[in-house]
Structure formats: C-alpha cells, structure tokens
C-alpha cells in the first residue's frame, strides 16, 4: 500500500526529499518542514482521513515521530509517516489543524518524550502535572528517585 502512496507523493512533491523505508510496515520518511503539506495531500487528495496513532520514539541519535494513517471511507491503509527531530531542539509541526484528534496524542508525546509541536493550540502536559521536571520516556531519564507534586499544582 505504502509504495503506491509513496510514488504519488513523489510525483506531487518533486522538490521535497522523501524516502521509502522497506520494513515490516513500509514507511515514508518525511522532513519536518514538509510534514504538514504531505499530510494535507494525503488527507485531501488520497483519502487518508483518519489519523490513528501519533508515537514518539527516542533513538540514540535522533527523536522520531511516527504517524499511522488509515482511510475510514475507502477502508485502506496503513500509511506510516516518520519524521525526525533533532536531539538538541526537537520540534515538528502540529497536525491538529488537519486532524483535531491529534490533540491529546501530541500532548502526550510532548509530555512523555519532550518533542514540541509547533502550531498546537494548547501544548501542555496531559498525564503528568505542570511543573514536572523532565520527560520520562526519554532513555536518559533516571528510573530511580521521585518528584512530589506541590500544593499549587493540585488546585
């Protein structure tokens, strides 16, 4: 499925650098700057109207955000988009303007991995409390020790 989608994307966006990753679930690697336009094309022109999952992964050399797209009306999929973000300043564009359902998922990725989503309407922590230090799903996060919640964060 992803191969045809990839070829159509290459036709549509000749200037952008896309990459086809041959894996168990074939994926398309996209630059962060092109993500929004590619996603908009997939949604509006190719019918991938359903954003199933947004996942952040902390690799040794980079952060990666993985998007799983399906089509509910045409019952096709999956299309996997992978976007890299730098270790120093991880930021990718938000897809909330296209899929409002990405709202909590992007907040969760921000909360647990610390990737910022530019253009998100209300980017704040969702599972942990405001004022928590660090992002627990990063590989360098200590697995011992504790943080306590202050009285002002409770109210």
């Amino acid at each position: 499925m992803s191969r045809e989608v990839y070829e159509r994307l290459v036709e549509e966006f000749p200037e952008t650098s896309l990459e086809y990753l041959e894996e168990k679930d074939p994926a398309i690697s996209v630059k962060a700057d092109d993500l929004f336009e590619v996603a908009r094309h997939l949604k509006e022109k190719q019918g991938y109207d359903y954003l199933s999952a947004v996942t952040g992964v902390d690799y040794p050399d980079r952060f990666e955000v993985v998007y799983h797209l399906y089509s509910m009306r045409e019952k096709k999929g999956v299309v996997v988009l992978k976007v890299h973000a730098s270790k120093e300043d991880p930021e990718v564009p938000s897809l909330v303007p296209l899929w409002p359902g990405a709202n909590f998922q992007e907040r969760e990725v921000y909360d647990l991995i610390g990737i910022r989503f530019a253009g998100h309407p209300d980017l704040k922590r969702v599972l942990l409390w405001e004022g928590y230090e660090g992002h627990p799903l990063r590989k360098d996060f200590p697995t011992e020790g504790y943080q306590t919640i202050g009285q002002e964060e409770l109210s």
Partner: protein
Amino acid sequence: MQRVETRLRTETITVNMGPQHPSTHGVFRMIVTLDGETIVDLEPVMGYLHRCHEKIGERNTYLQNIPYTDRLDYICSMSNNLAYVMAVEKLGGIEVPERAEYIRIIMVELTRIVNHMVAIGALLNDLGCFFTPMLYGLRERERILDLFEMASGSRMMCNYMRFGGVRYDLPPGFTPELKSVVAALPTFIDEFERLLTENEIVLARCQNVGILPPDMAIAYSCTGPLLRGSGVNYDIRKVDSYSIYDRFDFDVPLGTNGDVYDRYLVRIGEMRQSVRILEQAIEQIPEGEVSVKLPRVFKPPEGDVYHRIESPKGELGFYLVSDGSTNPYRYKVRSPTFINLTVLPELCKGHKVADVVAILGSIDIVLGEVDR
C-alpha cells in the same frame, strides 16, 4: 427621562467535576465552564492513574509485558492480551495453531459481551437508574468470568494468551459450560432490552444528547461504538480481518443519529453479533495444538510494527520497536478511550451540566487505559 438598567448582569462560572466523582468511573476530572446550567466549555484533566506503563514495558522482557496489559483496561484483559501478542507475533513472524486462533476468538468475543454489559450498566447508573440494570449485567457477566477462571485461573487478570497460542488448552467441562452460557445470552439480552430500550427515562435522557456527526467522529479519530454510533461503518474485524475473523458471518451494527441512545443500541447490537460469532466458533473449533514451541529467550528481529484490533472500546493498537534484544526498545499503547476523550468537550458544549455524565458514560472510559 433616564432609563433604568433592568437587565441582570450575568457571568460564567467554573465548576470542578472530579477527580472523585461517581460518574467518572475512576479518577478523572473535568473543568466545566457554565453559563447558568449550559456548558460553554469543558476541559478534561487526566493522569491521576498514570503509572509509567510504557516505561515499564521497555524495562520488561516481551513475555513479562503480557500480565501488564491485563491492567490497561481491566474489564477486557483478554482483548489487551490479544492485541499485544499479535503485535509481537507480527514482529517475530510467529504462526499460531488453528485451535488457538479459535480459543482466542471465543475469549475475545466473551470479553466484548462483558464489556458492553458493564458499559451499559454504568451508563444507566450515571443516569440515576442506580444498580438495577448494572446488577442484571453483572449476574450474567459472572458466568462468563467463571469461564475465564476455568481457562486461565483468574476472573479478570487473565494473562492467558502467549506468543504463538494460548497458555493452556480448554479444560474438561469448559465447552459444555460455554454452550450453556452462550445459549442463555440471547434471552438475557432480550430481557435487558425489554427493561431499557423503550424505557421513557432512557429515551428522555439519551436521545438527541451528545450528538456526534460522522465527519467530526472521523476527524477526531474516534473508534469503536462511539464511531459506529454515528453511522460510520468501520469495524477493524471486518476491515483488517485479523486472526480468523474472515471465517465468521456477522454484521456491524450502526447508529443513525450519533447520540447517546445510538451508542447504547450499537452496544446491544454488538452483543448479539458476538453471540453469533461465538455460536459459529463453537461449531468450527478443531482439535489440535494450542501453542508453538518458542526459544526460552525470545529475541525478535530488529524492526518496528504496529498492530491493532477492534477491542470492545475501539481501536487498541500496540506499536513496538525492537532492537534485537530481549526487551522492546519502545512499547507504545494506542489506547482507544484516551483518544475518544479528545472529542468530549465538543460533545458536551451546549448541553446541560447533567448531560455530561450521560455523554461521558456513553464514551465508556476506563481510567486504567486512559492514564496508563
């Protein structure tokens, strides 16, 4: 002559519902902005039950994660098991014996019935029909949980499925008991419906409340009965036909209005369809092995997979990244109710504050899965 200002000055007030509130089915908080009785805005606040499920998943070996998945949505442990083991099987390229596939389907469809009984019971609890329908549901549920206990040794935290099959074969006496439970279910569902479906209070409280249009349902990534209540024909059992779902003949119940009442009807319909699947599975189940031999230390090849199933609450998916070692490099749970909650503020706006509990009840959340 000077006009006297007679209009009353009004302002919105903010009300805090939860975290300890009977309608939230756990520890879940909503910050509601009200104009009189009408909801202007609502903000869900969650995370009170967050226990680093995904971080623990990275620490554990693949096998050690199975009992942890039981505790995600603790009403449907069998479905969680299935989604996880199927993701690992896809990662490791493991084949499942025929008999094990049937046992899995039987367990998962029984789980669906259990979940919908509890979901409808809890919805009626929220509407003020306190515990009568819930206990009718729990009475039948207990017979199904007895079956789970016979097969796995535990009523709720089943920990039953393994990579390449299930842990034990069905014990002697299981199949006759299963047949008797399944034979009694249609009568129970009829009784349940006679009590509720045309109940005037249910109609008054549920119809035209929390309407979710189909386009909005898709845009907000809604899945499960919430999506199908809006009339979108999307059931992953049909779309992906994972496991052996293509061998069974069943329909996908759909709603028309997308209100709370339609979600209730979809759940009732799904229970009936699950009974149909169970009847066919009991008839077709072959003899044979129920698991495959795997090496003691299980190391899947490098790569990443996403696998999803139609859990009773919606699309439950696991995204696993393997680096070739004994434990997953990344273990992500795509939990259906966490994402279904994204649409809650939109559903509630414009309704009365008393309707919030009905709308929340119709989404059917379990906080073990929302907060992970």
